[in-house]
């Protein structure tokens, strides 16, 4: 006999939605902040993002694009793993099957290859941009070190993937590379033996490079990227030069009206 109107219980779909997204529509500043803070993928952004940090020419989006190519490589690589067997008797044939027999196999293999080249290029350009923007300076100097390690891991991933087609280029490329490693003054021969699992490139080397390429290096790289982005966020996001233009609010207000 209450005089208050009974509050209607939200419907099932709405309750499911509310269990996943626990804030309201992003139409207030508070909800907009919550949308970022409560989302694992969006919270890589710092608490405050400046408008000029989001501009394309501030970063050319190089770091994000490098991460995107890595994602592409993980997905296309997982598809390739379905047909490829790292065995000297089968590897080359499986690679040829992917090219000529498997539906879309050639597309996925080429996608993997081009994405790999693109990732190396983008990571290199990202390093260059960070260098020229002096974004490696304190307090970000350790993040620069992590970045250089990530670049090294990217190159190692390219190199370990190079052996997997098991053709002449792969075989001699890795023979030469591991001989360069064995020229290392201390423990070079030991590293070569552990890497190849023998005195030369053979079945042991193929499966070792396969494990490095498909599991160990991507796992380390993923942790490294997480660390890299986390530090980047804690340091306040994109490193910008001191603002020298007119007042920030003035620019947003006079949009299109400035000369």
């Amino acid at each position, binding site marked *: 006999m209450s005089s208050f109107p009974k509050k209607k219980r939200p419907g099932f779909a709405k309750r499911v939605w509310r269990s996943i997204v626990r804030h309201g529509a992003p139409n207030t500043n508070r909800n907009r902040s919550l949308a970022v803070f409560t989302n694992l993928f969006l919270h890589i952004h710092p608490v405050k993002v400046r408008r000029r940090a989001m501009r394309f020419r501030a970063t050319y989006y190089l770091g994000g694009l490098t991460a995107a190519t890595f994602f592409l490589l993980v997905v296309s690589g997982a598809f390739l793993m379905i047909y490829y067997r790292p065995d000297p008797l089968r590897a080359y044939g499986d690679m040829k099957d992917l090219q000529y027999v498997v539906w879309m196999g050639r597309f996925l293999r080429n996608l993997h290859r081009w994405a790999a080249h693109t990732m190396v290029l983008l990571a290199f350009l990202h390093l260059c941009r960070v260098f020229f923007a002096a974004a490696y300076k304190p307090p970000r100097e350790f993040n620069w070190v992590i970045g250089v390690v990530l670049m090294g891991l990217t190159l190692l991933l390219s190199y370990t993937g190079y052996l997997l087609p098991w053709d002449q280029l792969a075989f*001699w490329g890795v023979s*030469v590379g591991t001989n360069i490693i064995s020229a290392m003054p201390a423990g070079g021969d030991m590293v070569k*033996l*552990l890497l190849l699992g*023998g005195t030369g490139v053979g079945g042991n080397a193929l499966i070792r490079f396969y494990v490095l390429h498909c599991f160990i290096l991507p796992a380390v790289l993923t942790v490294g990227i997480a660390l890299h982005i986390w530090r980047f966020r804690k340091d306040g996001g994109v490193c910008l030069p001191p603002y020298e233009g007119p007042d920030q609010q003035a620019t947003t207000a006079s949009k299109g009206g400035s000369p």
Partner: protein
Amino acid sequence: MLLDDLAEQAEENEPNRREFLAQAGVASLGVATVGTGTVAVGFLSPAVLYEPPKKVSAGTLGDHPEGTVHFSPEYKLYVIHRKRRLYALSAICTHLGCMTRYQRDSREIHCPCHGSRFSLEGEVLNGPAAEPLPRFPIALQEEQLVIDRGREVGPDEALVI
């Protein structure tokens, strides 16, 4: 009187329980790290190598007439009979380990990877290789030629026939 004053005073240099436990923890972490490293290296080191043996047979003297250069891709070596001398050369380029090839027309040994060239005696004719091709000893054991790939001999050693 404060309660602390009642507690038994530890000796100056004697570590207390907390410090001891912390040190024991660090030490056990170190032992675990060394152990893990040792196990990893031991596990990764191949216990058995399914590779051709170091001492290999190269047939009989009749298989290598004067003026022949025989190439064995499996054992990665050349057996050369030249000027009444029989000797074995490694076929692995001394630059970065590619397999060389005997060129019949120029009577030279070429490496396809970076263009090193060797004479039939194993000397470097052209870089980037800096070292000559290693020469392995050949022994005659009951009519059979046995090459020991695990040993290296001087540049003039050969089986004089």
